């Protein structure tokens, strides 16, 4: 095992997994919140857009989305997201499209987690907010969403745990994260299959276990008492 750690940059690969997770997670949180606002808005066009996005993206395999981003958009249409003159442009492009696909995919789940949180809020909360003269946006920002986020912490935790593990799908477009390195190490060291898999599994547990425990603790601490 020490031999493997010395010969391969396993830590670096996990670092890439973390980088993907942070970038895609942030994107998913912002986009997912926006989608949730769309789905709750009184404007029919926005509502239709929100539900179409969620239903389309949530029901498509992530592998398809990721490969579509790389082959369909990057390779065939030449939609570059990275600076072409940079020596790392190929890797950068793959990373950015991968993050976009993973974040966009996870956003659909974030949206639904938030919406389930919104549904726990009694309708009287929004009525009271409107009664003191808050606009639709202020009602969402000051009263509905803060309570929805608190009620959504536990389901959001599960969503982000799933996302971190889903980041391994980016190996299919050659992003040098841990699953990508794993298949290379297995190719070159077939006799150490169990060790390699154990290291990868342990790495993910280290990444996701605190997240799940943190989410549970936070959701208890921040729970809105009624």
């Amino acid at each position, binding site marked *: 095992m020490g031999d493997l750690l010395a010969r391969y940059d396993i830590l670096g690969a996990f670092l890439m997994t973390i980088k993907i997770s942070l970038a895609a997670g942030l994107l998913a949180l912002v986009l997912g919140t926006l989608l949730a606002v769309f789905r709750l808005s009184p404007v029919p066009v926005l509502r239709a857009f929100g539900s179409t996005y969620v239903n389309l993206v949530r029901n498509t395999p992530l592998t398809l989305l990721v490969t579509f981003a790389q082959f369909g958009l990057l390779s065939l249409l030449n939609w570059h997201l990275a600076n072409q003159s940079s020596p790392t442009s190929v890797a950068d492009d793959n990373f950015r499209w991968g993050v976009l696909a993973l974040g966009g995919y996870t956003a659909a789940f974030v949206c639904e987690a938030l919406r389930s949180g919104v549904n726990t809020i009694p309708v009287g909360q929004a009525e009271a907010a409107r009664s003191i003269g808050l606009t*639709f946006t202020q009602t969402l920002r000051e009263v509905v969403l803060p309570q929805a986020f608190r009620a959504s912490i536990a389901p959001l935790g599960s969503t982000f745990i799933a996302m971190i593990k889903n980041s391994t799908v980016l190996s299919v477009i050659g992003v040098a994260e841990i699953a990508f390195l794993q298949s290379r190490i297995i190719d070159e060291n077939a006799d150490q299959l169990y060790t390699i898999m154990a290291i990868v599994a342990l790495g993910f547990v280290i990444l996701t276990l605190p997240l799940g425990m943190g989410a549970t603790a936070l959701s208890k601490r921040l729970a809105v008492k009624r």
Partner: protein
Amino acid sequence: MNTGPEQSAVTSRAPLVVLDKVNKHFGDLHVLKDIDLTVGEGEVVVLIGPSGSGKSTLCRTINRLETFESGSITIDGKPLPEEGKELARLRSDVGMVFQSFNLFAHKTILENVTLGPIKVRGMKKAEAEQRAKELLDRVGVGHQAGKYPAQLSGGQQQRVAIARSLAMDPKVMLFDEPTSALDPEMINEVLDVMTRLAKTGMTMIVVTHEMGFARKAADRVVFMADGQLVEQATPEEFFTNPRSERAKDFLGKILTH
């Protein structure tokens, strides 16, 4: 027209809230039928009637928490706008107190009262807090300012809700069955605050089953049944000498115990 709304009780006050032929349906149910009602400045109007008569709906229609299909509602000469910023501005002048209090559960008592003044009126935080504390003292919950709604009793929460509405300096306040969700021993502390408020000259429209409050604080009692205004009179006149059969029947049922 049925027995005819009694207009003699309408005083010569300047009209503040005017409903003109307001109609509303819930599906097939015609909940508000050609409602005409004028509430003068400083007047305290109590809406009573059997459950399902449409009095809560009427109350909620006045600040457009419920929509209506035809007719018009004007507040201080301005017609109720449709959704949007205009409506929000108008609502800030119309206080609303709910049956279930509806305090913002994630905010402290003080934050509940300062939210509107800061976000809607653009008041400075320190100024809003100062004013909120005065109002909370006035309704007797000043010492609870740092707590969260769930830590207060129902009666205390409802008094905070009244302070939250007052913080907006409303032109009129609507009360939608403000004591119906309270334990009996807490009803009076809320009614006391409302009675004091009525004496300060606040314009109030109150949906309630508290006949004692109606007698003591109301300038006019409006009796509603089946979506219509059946009868209106001074409390004295209404309780001693109801003229419509519906009102006699209703009072007979509630006053015998």
